[in-house]
């Protein structure tokens, strides 16, 4: 563990609510291996007992403690203080793409409503419950998602253009991919992808992939193959006809 060159750090934390807010500086003593969430907890128990922060596992497994640290969307439980420049204040803001409730806590309820639009897993008729690890591996990548919503937060379709009504966002393309590519699933979600989740709006800038704390290749492994499925289903009449006739096994 590297020695910490500073005894203290300054956190510049957004304090406020939906209407109004400002940053407030807090001095925090450093200990080896400290993460930003530890520092926030220190502020809570010593200086600002009502500082609102969401967290659960503090081990990178639940995806609750997302925030923007020095302008970068991160899990605060996995962001080490010694990885940040400590000679200047560390800014901590709530995720920008979601409405602020208070301080670092945002209203992420929209995500839960998007999830309801996605048809659940449905096994093919007469399926035998055997699978190859190889086929499972491909899908397990998507199922690693801890729903931290950092990918949603940085997606410019949501963050800058506010298209929450028409667009599902990377998280729910990953979710859909995990169902579509399930080796035994028997439903097509191409229509939902096109009409309800607006996958066409994604122009593959890969911002989502860059921030994913689980290193899911969101763009390459989930979004692009799903876009191809939509193209096949809606824009390739021959393939569509063949599919219909054979009620083909899914890839």
């Amino acid at each position: 563990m590297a020695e910490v060159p500073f005894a203290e750090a300054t956190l510049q934390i957004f304090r406020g609510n939906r209407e109004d807010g400002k940053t407030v500086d807090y001095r925090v003593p450093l200990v080896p291996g400290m993460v930003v969430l530890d520092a926030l907890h220190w502020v809570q128990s010593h200086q600002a007992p009502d500082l609102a922060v969401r967290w659960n596992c503090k081990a990178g497994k639940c995806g609750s403690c997302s925030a923007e640290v020095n302008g970068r969307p991160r899990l605060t439980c996995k962001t080490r203080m010694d990885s940040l420049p400590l000679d200047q204040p560390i800014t901590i803001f709530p995720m920008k793409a979601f409405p602020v409730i208070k301080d670092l806590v945002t209203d992420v309820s929209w995500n839960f409503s998007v999830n309801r639009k996605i048809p659940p897993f449905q096994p093919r008729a007469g399926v035998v419950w055997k699978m190859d690890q190889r086929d499972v591996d491909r899908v397990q990548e998507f199922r690693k998602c801890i729903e931290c919503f950092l990918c949603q937060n940085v997606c410019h379709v949501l963050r800058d253009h506010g298209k929450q009504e028409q667009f599902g966002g990377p998280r729910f393309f990953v979710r859909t991919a995990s169902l579509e590519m399930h080796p035994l699933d028997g439903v097509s979600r191409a229509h939902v992808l096109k009409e309800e989740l607006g996958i066409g709006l994604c122009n593959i800038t890969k911002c989502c992939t860059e921030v994913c704390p689980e290193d899911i290749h969101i763009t390459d492994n989930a979004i692009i193959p799903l876009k191809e499925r939509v193209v096949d289903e809606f824009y390739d009449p021959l393939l569509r006809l063949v599919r219909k006739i054979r009620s083909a096994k899914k890839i």
Partner: protein
Amino acid sequence: MTSRYEVHEHDVLIIGAGGAGLRAAIEALSQGVRVGIVCKSLLGKAHTVMAEGGIAAAMANVDTSDDWRAHFRDTMRGGKFLNNWRMAQLHAQEAPERVRELEQWGALFDRTEDGNILQRAFGGHTFKRLCHVGDRTGLEMIRTLQDRGVHLGIDVYMECTITRLLKDGNRVAGAFGYWREQGRFVVFRAKSVVICTGGIGKAWKITSNSWEYTGDGMALAYEAGADLMDMEFVQFHPTGMVWPPGVQGILVTEAVRGEGGILRNKNGERFMERYDPKKLELSTRDVVARSIYTEVRENRGTEHGGAYLDISHKPADYVKRKLPSMYHQFLELADVDITREPMEVGPTCHYMMGGIRVDAETAQTSIPGLFAAGEAAVGLHGANRLGGNSLSDLLVFGRRAGLAAAEHARGTETPTIDYSHIDESVQQMLAPFERLDGEGPYAIHSDLQTTMQGLVGIFRCEEDLRRALSEIETLKERAARVHVEGSRLFNPGWHLVWDLHSMLTIAEAVTRSALARRESRGAHSRIDYPALDDAWGKKHNVVVRNAGTMTLVEAPVLEMPDDLKQLLAEDSGAK
């Protein structure tokens, strides 16, 4: 008066949305009743998400000799025969079907060569029995259950804390609580209530548990007049992280040992050879935790007061594939590459074997209409839980609780709520804002953790436990005068006040029970009574509320039928 809070109505109200709560909700919904589920966090963040190693179920996919009898026998032996035998039997018999069901709902487990669900070895299990998804089994399980429940149509009330169960005469009538976000109060009227709120790890300083684990459900049930039982049995998981300080207590999955990890002390000695030469690292958790603790106490610990756990003899690719989150956790938080060097580990407060006393078949408590399942309930695990038996517990008894709660609701009239109780609760919740002096809740919580860590830990003695009781008494007095700053809008300080109330209640129950049991059994080790005592092996400590005072009574361990006794007497046919 009703303008001060909203009212929701359900046939079945479930408190807690981890594995047990979600499984209960799914079962109750399939019975055609109206189901609501309340959780303190966002949906999908409950503690189940952190479960790593796997679900124990005798599916015999890898070791074909396995069957429910062997699983039953391992569970009873691991629990030092203090388990409710009927729960252990139901659990062993029904777990495989519950796992298959998860798969049919879309869960994707790791596979065997021939395409079945892969199973791994774990402490105390005679056969390879844990169905798993790398080291993130809990995430797969909660996501599967969550999506199943949402698509079936459960009403989910997220970020809502229940502070009181409401009763109509003797039976349950619903629950009172507040929205964490806005701080408004809320009343749920329900014919059946199922408590699935998990454990109490946050009362200890070094714990693998999240902030949610404050014993709420146990405290709610106790205050409503239900029995708590076996509260002295707190599981310290042998392997939590010990360095750096900020990560202390974070879980290191038992799957590291299941996959071949070796424990050594600072002298390089494989010390488990001295404590359990047969099972070594795959001994039960109580034994491994005590062994590590003893090595450290006798100055054979590592630099930061733990033991070395080494998996680096396995190929790096294998480690990254089977233990991906451990690999990242150590690399990112501790600068340790586990494919090349050992981890430093030590015991961390992990699980509560004790809990709300329930009927084995229906999960009903002594209060009509009140049910409990999962870690909040007691019975399956006896004096020590085997790894992997928790996830299967959630599924088996979550389902049973949901089924029985729906049946109870169908045969019951809508209860009447006594609104004076609600007014009383509102006053109680607002009082910390109105006090002008008094301290905040954080320091009291921290002091409680110090007390429990130091005096009610792995090894206990009468003197320490008595001191702990008197310290808890002082902490209760401080908590009664607690003051909160700020508004009711998402105010963690205010939230902690009620969590602290629950923790203090349950910490007292643990300490009183630990003081009463003058023997060492499973996870309860008394240095002043270091041996098993047959007389204590026949009885449980039951905690009841008697005229407002916490009281302990003894209850006999249920007598097992002869065929099961016979089963236990047989050799396990271990490898």
